[in-house]
């Protein structure tokens, strides 16, 4: 690890200016991913600015049903929040499906959003990786890619986004409040616009500019009558990243017709993946109890996938999982 200075931010603007102007200065929150990547030599900051003292650690339930979640609210506190458990259960479920009790006590909301891929080549500085070292090549194409992505990938990078929480947030139409480094107004942005696909520049996971600071995540009130759930499929019963995960939200009429349906997928894409093609196919549909329509719709989401030999199975696994989740929501 490189020698570094450490300070606790007292003023967000000053911290943002420092990160914006010095390429080796980074924000630090829970540290669960960043400190690990520093040990591995993947990130080599020479100055850390700890933002956990900025007072961004409140969960505010508003009268209109929306919720404002501070950037440094710990994952465990968010998962345990009674209002989140009652009204946004899939968010608690997604958090509780991720990491361990210890890590959830440390990890923050914004840090969870901005965690880096767990692609083994990204974390191994002895190997080529276009995300870590642009232009060096992608070791995963020929190597271990079972855990990696088949949607939103490129020839340069097939890294998967590791967050569970972000998949639930995508399905909840969450908006991320970013304070811009250049001082322009905070603009809530969707997760679709926060994350970018690798294309020919996999080194940037998001559209954030240096010094931009996530200050909160906003949850709009869920639609009236919404039912929602998060389900994660993995190799180990607990404490493992997803092979596939599904966050689903449905609003159904009395006759079972889907008035609203949202499906987000984890473990299969370069970013939390809203399955908008599947949603469009299912809107207004009346799925059968076997949920074959859901299965077919989610499978069609993978028409544009770039499967690799060892991760192609995840298209069917995602479709099966989504069908099971929606079925359980509609016919509990």
């Amino acid at each position, binding site marked *: 690890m490189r020698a570094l200075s450490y300070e606790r931010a007292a003023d967000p603007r000053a911290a943002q200016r420092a990160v914006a102007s010095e390429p*080796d200065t980074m924000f630090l929150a829970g*540290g669960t991913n960043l400190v*690990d990547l520093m040990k591995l030599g993947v990130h080599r900051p020479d100055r850390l600015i700890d933002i956990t003292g900025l007072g961004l650690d409140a969960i505010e339930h508003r009268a209109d049903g929306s919720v404002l979640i501070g950037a440094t609210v710990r994952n465990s506190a968010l998962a345990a929040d009674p209002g989140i458990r009652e009204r946004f259960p899939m968010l608690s479920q997604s958090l509780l499906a991720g*990491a*361990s009790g210890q890590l959830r*006590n440390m990890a923050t909301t914004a840090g969870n959003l901005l965690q880096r891929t767990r692609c083994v080549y990204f974390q191994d500085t002895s190997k080529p990786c276009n995300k870590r070292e642009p232009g060096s090549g992608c070791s995963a194409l020929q190597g271990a890619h079972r855990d990696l992505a088949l949607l939103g990938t490129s020839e340069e990078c097939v890294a998967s986004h590791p967050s569970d929480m972000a998949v639930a947030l995508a399905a909840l139409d969450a908006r991320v409040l970013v304070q811009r480094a250049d001082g322009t107004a905070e603009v809530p942005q969707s997760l679709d616009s926060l994350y970018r696909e690798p294309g020919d520049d996999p080194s940037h996971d998001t559209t954030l500019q240096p010094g931009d600071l996530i200050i909160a995540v906003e949850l709009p009130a869920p639609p009236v009558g919404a039912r929602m759930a998060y389900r994660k499929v993995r190799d180990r*019963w607990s*404490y493992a990243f997803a092979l596939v995960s599904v966050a689903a939200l449905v609003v159904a009429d009395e006759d079972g017709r889907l008035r609203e349906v949202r499906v987000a997928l984890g473990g299969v894409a370069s970013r939390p993946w809203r399955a908008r093609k599947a949603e469009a196919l299912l809107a207004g549909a009346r799925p059968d109890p076997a949920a074959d329509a859901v299965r077919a719709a989610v499978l069609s989401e993978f028409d544009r996938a770039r499967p690799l030999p060892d991760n192609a199975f995840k298209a069917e696994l995602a479709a099966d999982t989504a069908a099971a989740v929606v079925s359980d929501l509609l016919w509990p």
Partner: protein
Amino acid sequence: MTDRPIWSQVTLSVNGDERTLELDNRTTLLDALREHLDLTGTKKGCDHGQCGACTVLLDGERVNSCLLLAVMADGHEVRTIEGIAELGQASGDDPSERELHPVQRAFLDHDGLQCGYCTPGQICSAVGMLGEAQRGWPSRVTSDLHAGLAGADALDPEEVAERMSGNLCRCGAYVGIVDAILAAAGAPARDAADRSGDPSRA
């Protein structure tokens, strides 16, 4: 790199004693405890937050000390395995008469260890976890997410296994670990018929 300091003065409350150290900012809390304070009860396993051997309590909550820089904990309270027995006991007790923490006692009574390397982390994690359970925090396997858990004594083997999944035991002492934690929680013991249960789930 400018001339900003790469060392910091770090003051921690460690097992109730205030300790001040001059540390290179790169020093993890784990290394500060083991190498600067000679508190070697906290173990270094993977050093990457994957095994839980380094678990300590920070302000009462369980954390992986290998992923915290010590300077991040400046001004906070750390409780390690060396200070677990004191938790819940009146201060000023004669140290020679201090008893083990109920979780420590239960690990001995239920064979919750073999080689013992993961044990300090298991015990610190269990103490933190029981606090979470007592507050009613749900886990991924809690049947009613909204209602949460009725308390630590409502834990069952599946709940303990899920909540303790951040602590690995390479000897595979999980069956005893789960039994020990259930006993310390005041929860019903696993059925005798269930005692050969699948330890891979723990």
